[in-house]
């Protein structure tokens, strides 16, 4: 929309809740695993730190720079896995991942890619742990 004043997107409730009160937006002093992903087009970045012990994700925390949806994405991801056994979390179906952020506007869809990438990454942590 050239020439219009540009505006923030409309957000669904999940997104609103997760960016306005991001309980997991902090840092771990000691992390057993950590990743930073980003979207090269929009420049958004999410860093996740995990403390995984004996197959249990004891703590998951994130930091992010980006749009409100990507801030929410980090929190949604951490909330989903924090305190859970890695094996359970790895069972998260693709369908679950797709709906985890609620209904998105077209311009928000690419946040899903970051979410998918984060779940993908969990598999890699798991593998060496075996």
């Amino acid at each position, binding site marked *: *929309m*050239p*020439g*219009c*004043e*540009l*505006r*923030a*997107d409309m*957000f669904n409730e999940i997104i*609103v809740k997760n*960016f*306005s009160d*991001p309980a997991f*937006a*902090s*840092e771990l002093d000691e992390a057993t695993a950590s990743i*930073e992903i980003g*979207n090269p*087009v*929009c*420049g*958004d*970045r*999410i*860093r996740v730190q995990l403390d995984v012990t004996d197959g249990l994700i004891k703590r998951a925390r994130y*930091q*992010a*720079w*980006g*749009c*409100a*949806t990507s*801030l929410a994405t*980090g929190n949604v991801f951490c909330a989903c896995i924090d305190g859970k056994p890695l094996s359970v979390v790895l069972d998260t179906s693709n369908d679950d991942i797709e709906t985890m952020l609620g209904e998105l506007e*077209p*311009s*928000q*869809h*690419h946040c899903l*890619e970051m979410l998918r990438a984060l779940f993908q990454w969990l598999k890699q942590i798991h593998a060496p742990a075996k």
Partner: protein
Amino acid sequence: MSLQGYFDYNATTPMCQQAIDALNGALFDFGNPSSKYSLANISKQRLENARRQVARLVGCDSSELTFTSGGTEANNWAIKGTLTSRGSIGNAQPAHVIVSSIEHSSVLEIASYLERVFGFEVTRIKPNADGIVSAKAVEAVLRPNTQLVSIMLVNNEVGTIQPVGEISTLLRARGIHFHVDGVQAVGKIHVNAHELGVDTMSFAAHKFYGPKGVGGLYVRQGLTIEPLLHGGDQEGGLRGGTEAVALIVAMGAAAEAIYAVLPELVFRAANYRITFSRLLIEYVPGVSFHGPSDPEQQVPYTLSVCIDGIRAEALAAILDQMHGIQVSLGSACANNKTVSLSHVLVAMGVSERAIKATLRVSFGQYTEEQDLKRFVDAMAQGVRSLQRISKAVDH
């Protein structure tokens, strides 16, 4: 709807009570103003009264005003209509048109349409770093076949006031049509079409506390331009279609009301701008402003605020969701392939990083001093929270 968090007056304004009352009063006299029985006369007289009220605000004669469905229609009509009347549209020999690169999308898209459909030559002039397009800059790109120049009086994103009077003088001497998008100026600052010397100038009621969906075009006495809406003999044959009587009447009332308080409003807004920018600088780390260094070159209602290191889109979401505050942005998520950046800020040479950190704050007649304070508090809080979330990531 509460107005204390509304900082997007450049996008649209709430209707003033006078406009609401006028609109309600006009709903029941439903006669078609073009009909000739006595009943329809009421509607006709209301239209003419509104035309006088608006003419005062625009600084022209009633006979020079034609009502339209808003600023976009007025821009489309002025540009396409003029080029048709001048024989440039429908001619094998393509003409040349000049616009600034910081025009509203309606003007920019018309320019692209002229290029695409009719093979026009279009020059898009970049503003200087202050967001100003000088008469010199226009002069430099004139060609022998330049038929029309379109430059906005006030920019909607950064509030710069263009030297329209000087450009008029330049173009008048050369017989080139000068259209001015006055949508962000009429009803917001002192405007006088005659003094400005422009050929056509558009405006929209919803920017000055009138209803959405109505506006108009000033066409200088003696000029005639081909209609955009061909049809009946409404508006002196210049614009077909049954008139939006209630909206027009409400626009008239809004024009009269704002005209009466305009000097005072401008004065107050200028003070607000000073207070506001001081407070921001004091409480929000990393704040700077886009726009001219000379405050005289900017309307007092608009601040283009950059907060270094912050993704403004997220800040706006926090302001909206947690504080009930509305602003607009210099950049927005678009899709996976492109970032959507304000074409105005890009043209002014602002970096992508700074554009992504930019909010547009605009205030108006219902903004109170305490709203500014509340805004700055919310902003400081939001910025702190975003900084906390992002401190460990590169950006």
